[in-house]
């Protein structure tokens, strides 16, 4: 993780960096959050083992560039370029980790699977109770029901909240990210994904980032 990660900055220093994205603090915060969400999903979809950290690093590069030179005409295009470069840079490392993964993987016995499911369910309840009430209600409602029945429920939920489906999906994603971090802390990294290889450095940004 970069030493300049936002999680390690003072609030004032972070605010100064945000101001480079937009003079209006709220709009800058929204832009930062959306970019971070897009980056973390992008790195996840492109196979990075630690997408949140890479999203932090990518935004660091953007902010450093903005500090050096205000003339970044298209922030999104710049970020996309840096992110793609980081994917290429990380390819060799991921190949190495994939080798380790193959070595670490062992068949899961049914009893272990059942225990893991129970532990996961217990931890999920703990994690849900740690969310703000409106967040836990939203995520529970979003995943309530079975099969195609959930689709009209979700549309109805978006209507009730007065937001488009895309905005609802983003909110759900942010809550899910926090649940994922909480589950990892609760279960331990080896339990959430049994064959997962933990990184050498603990991902501190996961626990400090706001939804």
């Amino acid at each position, binding site marked *: 993780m970069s030493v300049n990660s936002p999680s390690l900055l003072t609030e004032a220093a972070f605010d100064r960096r945000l101001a480079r994205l937009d003079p209006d603090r709220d709009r800058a915060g929204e832009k930062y959050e959306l970019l971070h969400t897009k980056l973390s999903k992008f790195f996840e979809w492109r196979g990075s083992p630690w997408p949140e950290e890479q999203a932090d690093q990518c935004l660091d590069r953007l902010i450093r560039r903005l500090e050096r030179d205000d003339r970044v005409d298209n922030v999104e295009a710049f970020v996309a370029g840096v992110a793609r470069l980081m994917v290429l840079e990380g390819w060799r490392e991921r190949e190495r980790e994939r080798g380790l993964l193959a070595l670490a993987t062992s068949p899961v016995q049914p009893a272990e699977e059942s225990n893991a499911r129970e532990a996961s369910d217990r931890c999920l309840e703990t994690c849900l109770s740690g969310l703000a009430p409106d967040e836990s209600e939203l995520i529970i409602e979003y995943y309530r029901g079975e099969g195609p029945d959930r689709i009209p*429920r979700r549309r109805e939920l978006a209507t009730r909240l007065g937001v488009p489906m895309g905005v609802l999906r983003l909110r759900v994603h942010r809550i899910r990210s926090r649940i994922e971090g909480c589950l990892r802390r609760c279960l331990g990294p080896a339990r959430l994904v049994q064959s997962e290889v933990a990184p050498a450095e603990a991902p501190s940004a996961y626990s400090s980032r706001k939804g």
Partner: protein
Amino acid sequence: MEERDRAVPLSDSLLARCYLLGELSQSDLARVDERLFSDDRFFSDVLQAEEELMEDYLESRLPDEERAHFERHFLASPSRRRSFEVTRALLRRGGRYAALPAAAPDAAALTTPGRARLRIRRWAIAASLAAAAALIVVLGKGLRERPSGSVQGDSLGDTVTLALSAGLVRGAQVVPELVLPAGTRVLRLRLDPPAVESTGYQAVLRTADGEPVWDDRDPRREQADGAAPIVLRVPAVLLEAADYVLTLQASGAGGAREDIAGYFFRVSAVSDRGRKR
């Protein structure tokens, strides 16, 4: 990994699906990467495609070929598997309530026809109160404790608490009644369960005309103490002005469930609550 070259462009939803399953050529991949950052709508399409793929896989709706791609490509990445496990856990939890209907729409968000339907539904509920009395008697037959108790309400922040003593169903002279003020998100019900031996409880909330509203398959006591009240947290958005019957069931050693208590209360009014900011 199989890559697809096409003369005809894919729809965005199919493109998103192919992207997630690792089926795009390098040139298509680069275009998709760029669009994720420049096109918010497309980013949302990919989020949706990911959600659908994971849920379709978990509920066995993926065709064999896509299922194989999903296992070989999507689940090959630790971070995607973490996300997948979160979906699996949430779906497993959500599926416990599968038999329940969708949440009642927030009246403030309804269109005029929606309001008309709601009025009709409320009229139907009012008209069925006589039938509800019969339902309460039927429910009461299985109860081990007779009605006697009190109700107390208090409100803290976005939570309204209603304390119900066992057996407010049968013969109750005063129906516990509450108003959900604006901003209420949770109705917290504190129940005094009868002293019965059980391995666990289940609570089911229905309208007085028997329509399921919500349930909790594993309600817990407020404290580890075996005599502490059971606390339920009902999302206020599910409640409208109506009469409700809450049934508490206990599981025996063999797993059989039995109704052990019933509680009756009335929501007399709801303000514009539950709308998220």
